[in-house]
């Protein structure tokens, strides 16, 4: 009974959000939220309804998985860093300077604890002289060649990376699940058509396809997220399909069909909840790939030029390696740690969800 009411409630909430968005985009003069913001609201609501709530309802199962995941120290380390990153991305921008604030008076400052020798303009004599420049507390991670604070850029880059990683993966998994489940459940011609389409999409090297589409349609963060989501579902579709294929012949599905359950009910009540564990693992392991793809796009100059993505900082840092090495080092470390954390966590979750693995 609760299932129907939850779906209904979800439908109502989503319609309210869509109505607000339509009103906002077309009627109101002052925009409440950018399109990406609505994306985010939709994503959060969905997760709340279909991820957080089931976890809360099945407390015993949740605790069981949690205990299993907790035994993996590297996974916990990854989780710790991801939580830190999320807090940084949400709260950080309120405490740091404007990442786009250009100040040539304070350009090329090294990070705290480092000194560099640079030629600086001396106002008194009106000539250039060599001086030792020290990192300051004002810019703990230093500044780039335009005097922008790197800490601020990294914090706002964390927001971009997480947005891209979470939302694009979410879209990709939605598409992958729909295609995988319908392919497995309906079989025959549907399966054939969908899987052949998946094969075609898989034959494009992912990054080349991404570059190609961004080149054609232009670089805007929302668009890039959409493009990654719409092209990155193939792996998930295949895994979900094979999972669903084996589930379809299991006794509980047969029993529920014998009891007269409809296709929709079997799909939503039995197939999807049972591939949820796999989906969570796929999600955790695809997020780093997505974050890297966006960073790589920004790095080669195809990213959204209006946002301070880690890839964009890296791109700027690459040109001045001789003088300001830290501009290229710092965002890369963040990128590396983020990807490493998601990989650690994903690996731990995979072991925890796999009943055959002994921990």
């Amino acid at each position, binding site marked *: 009974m609760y299932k129907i009411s939850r779906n209904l409630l979800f439908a109502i909430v989503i319609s309210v959000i869509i109505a607000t968005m339509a009103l906002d985009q077309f009627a109101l003069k002052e925009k409440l939220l950018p399109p990406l913001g609505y994306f985010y609201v939709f994503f959060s609501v969905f997760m709340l309804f279909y991820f957080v709530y089931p976890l809360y309802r099945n407390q015993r199962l949740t605790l069981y998985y949690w205990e299993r995941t907790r035994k993996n120290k590297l996974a916990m380390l990854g989780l710790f860093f991801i939580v830190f990153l999320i807090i940084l991305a949400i709260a950080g921008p309120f405490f740091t300077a404007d990442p786009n604030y250009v100040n040539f008076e304070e350009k090329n400052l090294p990070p705290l604890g480092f000194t560099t020798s640079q030629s600086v303009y001396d106002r008194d004599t009106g000539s250039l002289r060599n001086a030792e420049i020290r990192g300051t507390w004002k810019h703990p991670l230093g500044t780039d060649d335009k005097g922008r604070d790197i800490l601020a850029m990294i914090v706002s880059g964390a927001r971009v990376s997480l947005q891209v990683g979470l939302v694009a993966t979410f879209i990709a998994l939605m598409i992958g699940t729909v295609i995988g489940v319908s392919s497995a459940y309906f079989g025959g011609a549907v399966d054939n058509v969908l899987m052949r389409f998946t094969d075609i999409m*898989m034959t*494009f090297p992912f990054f080349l*396809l991404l570059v190609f589409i961004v*080149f*054609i349609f232009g670089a805007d963060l929302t668009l890039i997220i959409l493009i990654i989501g719409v092209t990155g579902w193939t792996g998930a579709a295949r895994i979900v399909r094979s999972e669903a294929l084996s589930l379809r012949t299991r006794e509980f599905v047969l029993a529920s069909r014998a009891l007269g359950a409809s296709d929709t009910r079997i799909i939503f009540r039995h197939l999807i909840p049972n591939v949820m564990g796999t989906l969570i693992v796929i999600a955790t392991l695809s997020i780093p790939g997505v974050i890297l793809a966006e960073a790589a796009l920004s790095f080669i100059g*195809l990213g959204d030029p209006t946002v301070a993505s880690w890839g964009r900082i890296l791109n700027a840092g690459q040109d001045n390696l001789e003088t300001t090495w830290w501009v290229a080092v710092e965002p*890369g470390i963040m*990128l590396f740690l983020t990807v490493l954390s998601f*990989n650690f966590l994903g690996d731990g979750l995979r072991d925890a969800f796999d009943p055959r693995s002994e921990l």
Partner: protein
Amino acid sequence: MAGKKASMGGYIARRLVYSLLIAWGILTITFLLLRLGPGSPADKYLANIAASGRVRDIAQVQAAIDARYGLDKPLYLQYVDYISNLLHGNLGWSLSTSLPVTELLSKHWIYSFELIFLSTVFAVLIGVSIGIYSAVKQHTKADYAVTVFSFMGISIPNFWLGIMLILVFSVKLGLFKTYYDTSLPLFSLGNLKAMTLPVITLGSGMLAGYSRYVRSATLDNLRKDFVRTARAKGLPERTVILKHVFRNAMLPVITIIMLDLSGVVFGGAYLTEIIFGIPGLGRISFNAIFADDYAVVVAVTLIGAMVTLIFNLLTDIAYTFLDPRVRYV
């Protein structure tokens, strides 16, 4: 035996037909994406003409260009043109370099090939050895070290690794040039040295992945009955590992290497070429993007997909010869 051969031939024929179908799908999707996009290949050209101020009636120029590129025809005819041009090996004209795209590609593909080939050799040699080593020494410090190392190798963004290698080995230590020297002859020691950093950049992620696959495949096989039999026969451990375990473990690994080579490696090679200035296909596509040179970008994307397709086909066919257990359905 005869039955098996016949079914194998049929299987290969089916795979061929099926690959042609995928190739057609790739061309169609590329065409649709191009037509759906807001820009046109002639935009930059038109903008230049308009900016020069020599032409009064820009609409006339537009019409002339559309006619030249066949853009004034109905969509299905454009599609027919597009496919037939590609079938004739005509990839179009590169506006930014004023060369036929095929000529441009034939000049530059060797650099991509060189990078990918050397990186693969590097990654396979080292990845397979440390994978087997860590499986044989499971639960030792060396095994854990390999596991952590491969996690890091998989997680490190290869474009960042490239920059860091340049920073340390070229800028600080001065061991290598910061940019690839195109004047070097392709088969020379100097060129091999110049390729060192790019190969490490592209190869390290592959290496880490392979060592993980090889490790788990070896562990799987170590537990098999035939290994116990081989040991019971009194074969030396070395022979057991190399002859029995290694051969069986390599089958899935070969598939992964072949599939990886197409999907993951192209993206990595693209970025590596850009960082080190290697004039391969990735680099010319990168230059073409910023010159709005559609034909080149399309050609490189198509080549990437086609090479992947051929690799997948070859993997499947190779598998039928390598593994007698594969059934041809």
